């Protein structure tokens, strides 16, 4: 089912983030949303994720959709290791071998059992991305997912996401044109 954004408006105090914003996102599309900082990219994703409410307008097509998200921040439990952080969202049904395998794919072999607080920023970022892709979903939201990654790891994670997310709807927000072009089948500028 397509996602239809109808005349969405959002204000923070006196600051109008966006006004009468409308967009149709076809099912299975990989959409890159580009905009400079402060133009409401994250707010748009938060509204889609149900973490913020719009002042006006509405969104259709999100009913019963499982949404996964890579936030701007890693949002991992610092005391838990990578396996447990992923299991926190996936539950015990997710086989440990599968999580080990995914972490190995993104170059985290050997770091699975360290508490998150002991890992580097780049490692945390990769774990946050794996978490979003391993748990079942219908819509994937990516908020500047590659920030803090070096070029090699950025390329590795882009390939990983593209490989894992072939058919599901994905919305990426970024200010990097290269990321937007590489990841998105469609690009939209706010």
């Amino acid at each position: 089912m397509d996602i239809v954004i109808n005349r969405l408006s959002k204000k923070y105090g006196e600051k109008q983030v966006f006004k009468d914003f409308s967009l149709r996102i076809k099912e299975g599309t990989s959409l890159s949303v580009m905009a400079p900082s402060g133009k409401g990219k994250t707010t748009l994703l938060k509204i889609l994720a149900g973490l913020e409410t719009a002042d006006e307008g509405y969104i259709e097509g999100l009913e019963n959709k499982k949404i996964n998200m890579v936030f701007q921040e890693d949002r991992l439990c610092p005391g838990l290791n990578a396996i447990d952080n992923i299991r926190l969202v996936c539950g015990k049904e997710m086989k440990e071998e599968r999580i080990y395998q995914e972490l190995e794919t993104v170059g985290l072999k050997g770091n699975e059992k360290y508490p998150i607080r002991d890992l580097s920023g780049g490692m945390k970022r990769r774990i946050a991305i794996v978490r979003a892709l391993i748990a079942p979903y219908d819509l994937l939201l990516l908020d500047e997912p590659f920030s803090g990654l070096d070029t090699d790891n950025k390329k590795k994670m882009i390939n990983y996401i593209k490989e894992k997310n072939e058919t599901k709807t994905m919305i990426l927000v970024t200010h990097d044109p290269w990321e937007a072009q590489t990841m998105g089948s469609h690009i939209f500028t706010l």
Partner: protein
Amino acid sequence: MAFMMKSSMPGKSKGNKNAGGFVKTKIKVWAVVLWLVIWEAAARFIGQEILLVSPVIVLLRLFQLAASAGFWESVFFSFVQITGGFFCALLAGALLAWAGSFFPWIKEMAAPVMAAVKATPVASFIILILLWVPSRNLSFVIAFLIVLPVIYTNILYGIENTDKELLEMAEVFRVPWGRRIRYIYLPEVLPYFRSACSVALGLCWKAGIAAEVIGMPSGSIGERLYEAKIYLETPDLFAWTLTIILISICFEKIFLFFVDKVTEME
């Protein structure tokens, strides 16, 4: 009285500080021995047992008392009443804080009550509650009232300071409530809970025994203390006081040991 123990939160304090924010110094054996010697010297200098009894006599009297069944009956009675009040307050404070963190009207409704309970002198409570409940349950109610605001305030603070970003993540990823409590709330709340318990355990014994001295429930430590005062049995007064201190410290150590074990598991 410090109800908020931010300084004892892991990662939020530097150095060895206790709940009040003061630097905690480990008690050294030599310091204890020195004070015992000073006490003994003072007792010998005064030479009147009724005013100041020697530590040796206190210890001997304690052993004598401990040999009687009545001693243990009194200890058991007061222990059950005071720890009963403590555990009930723990449960009520935790539930109320949990409800208050989700329903602001509960927090608003509880705020004046907690402020009043904190500010009211214990003696006023004791006299007032004596009118409502039998004296044998007085220390239970007083321990409950003294512990409740400490536990409530700290757990509420812990819940409200739980990482909002992690909670948003859990919301988006549809993490079930059981797992949210276990992996997101508990690690944040447990340090506050521990600090609250550490403070509340000392307070509940002090207030509970004070209540028993005033209410004089039959067969309680408070009644024994009162009798010691009436008959000017200073060795008994000191021996019972030492008993209270020992029970309070032992209970606190054992309880906090289990809390620490749970915290380590988290």
